[in-house]
């Protein structure tokens, strides 16, 4: 077993555990913290793949900015009654969901882990592709990332700006409305 696989297994265990934590904790803050751990373990996955730039960006954007805002809102809203108390009218669905989820996860992992193989030329096709080149050790993968982003992937990159405009407008619409209401 190589060091890479060991590292991967450790991080994967961490990622799964924290992922379960996100949905299992009753306290929203602990859920948010688990999500942070989950996002950080994703960054570790990128590091294992030598994707340093993506790893740093992941930490900077998700853990450093987005989750801070999450935590900000959650601590502000639920500081009084930290435990989320909701009466569940359809509690049988939870049980069914858990069973169905376990069956799905088992079937998927059986298929994917036991039987599946990556086709060699799919791997070759992929290795010529963006993600392997930017993770090539030693090469400045930030440069490769930038080249890919502003050449082959220019169009999707530009489209994201439209999505961000929509998101900003949403914040304006919903935020301004609640302010107008509180001023009444």
């Amino acid at each position, binding site marked *: 077993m190589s060091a890479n696989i060991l590292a991967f297994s450790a991080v994967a265990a961490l990622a799964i555990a924290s992922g379960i934590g996100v949905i299992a904790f009753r306290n929203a803050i602990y859920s948010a913290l688990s999500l942070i751990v989950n996002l950080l373990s994703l960054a570790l996955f990128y590091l294992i793949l030598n994707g340093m730039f993506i790893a740093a960006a992941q930490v900077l954007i998700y853990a450093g900015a987005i989750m801070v805002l999450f935590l900000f809102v959650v601590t502000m809203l639920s500081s009084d009654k930290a435990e989320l108390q909701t009466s569940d009218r359809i509690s049988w669905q939870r049980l069914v969901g858990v069973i169905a989820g376990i069956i799905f996860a088992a079937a*998927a992992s059986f*298929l*994917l882990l036991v*039987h*599946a*193989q*990556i*086709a060699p*030329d*799919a*791997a*070759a*096709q*992929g290795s*010529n*592709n*963006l993600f392997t*080149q930017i993770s090539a050790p030693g090469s400045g993968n930030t440069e490769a990332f930038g*080249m*890919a982003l502003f*050449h*082959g*992937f*220019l*169009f*999707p990159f530009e*489209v*994201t700006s*439209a*999505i961000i*405009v*929509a*998101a900003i*407008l*949403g914040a*304006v*619409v*919903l935020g*301004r*409305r609640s302010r107008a*209401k509180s001023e009444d």
Partner: protein
Amino acid sequence: MNFIYTVSNADWGHLLALAPLVVTTALTMLIDIFLPAKARSALVAVALAGVAGSGAGVYMLYQSSGNVLAFNGMITTDHLALFGSVIILVTTFLSLLIAPGYIERQGVAQQGEYYTLVQLAALGMLLLTSAASLMTIFLGIELLSLPLYILCAFSPGQTKAYESGMKYFMLSAFASGFLLYGMALTYGATGTTQLAGIQNFLANHQFTLTSGFGPYFIMGMALLIIGLSFKVSAIPFHAWTPDVYEGAPTPITAMMASGTKTAAFVVFIRLFTETFGSVTAEWQGIIWALAIITTIGGNILAATQTNVKRMLAYSGVAHAGYMLIGVAVANSLGTAGVLTYLAVYALMNTGAFGVLSALEQQIDTNVGLDDLRGLASRSPLLAAAMAIFLFALAGIPGAAGFIGKYTVFYAAAVSGHIELTIIGVLASAAGFFYYLRVIWMMYFVPPAGSSAESESLHAEIISAGGSAAAAKVSIATAAAVALPVGATIALFIAAVGVIGFGIAPAEIIQLARNAAGLP
């Protein structure tokens, strides 16, 4: 393959259909700053101009020939994309025409944002129809969903609106997760995100469920089906549809119902019928089952509704089922059928929601069945328009809906799926009930008054399967409905389209066949 791809001048030409809308979106936001609050309804003109410009762009792309792929295989401007784009543009155009009157009645203050978001959503739909890579598909879905979440919650101060936006957001985000996971697995199996590359890969490789890259690919495909089924609101991924449609502003519902469905079905066709065309056996069964459940379930659920908007939402589910039949047959004939269906559905559905929006005079008046009583005597034109759209939705020969159903069922029968044809025909026959019930309410039941007649009427409604709300006399029942100019034009266009295509369907069927690659 080297990923350093330099964008050429020819690439930009492929944006002709998108660029005008991008420009007017930016313009709308800019002009909004300088307009006084009262003049903001003029912004609709900017948005309409953008849609018209995009339509012109589509026409120019249709005339041009040559390479359809652009931007490193990210988007395509083939006839399928252009056909879908036209439907979306028409829907957006009609929805924009209905909007000003509705906005005025509902007292929406943030008109600039409203029109900007509508244009952004239209952009997302256009992008989705022309997506040629898994990456662009995902971005398109996000770009169309994000503005729609906000627009659903747009009516100020309505709990239902917030519920609508929130529900759509949560469930849609969940569905996006499935879609994304499916894309990741597909990419892992085939080593490329470009649809052409995937198609090529599948044509040259063998796989089974338990060997080779099969597990990845089949799992990916299954998850893709889930994600897309959510967008077309196929049963069992339909649960969001009635609540979201009910709380959203009606012009947005109109756009959402036809536009999103068009975009999602074009992706369905592009992904499954085209890209996964060589492995039909692996996915056909799932879609087949989905089509049957959706067709039957949608009609049953629609029949139980008393709120007209919810009824139309469930009827939308049923229509998604008919269209899925076209996908399930998995050939060009089915594709042509779905495209024809989408085109006529856009007209009749937008028209029906347009009539509803004219009836919703005030905040929080959702049109119930008994609000429609005697509409024919109060507003004969409106009632006539509604009748036309409902006849079309029901699929009565002579109106456009019949053409859509005919082409889809024909494709199923010819391709050896006679069982789908039979189920479809029977389901649409059952669907007559709830469409005709509305028409009967409008024409043969007098307006609510003090007579004993209305008492007995209630008993009838209840016995007809609905739990009719207590006799509330809304403004809609009290007086004739004033129809704004924009809505009149929109309804006129839709009605003419519905009747025109119903009588002379050859043109549109031919266009759809061209888009599907048939002679």
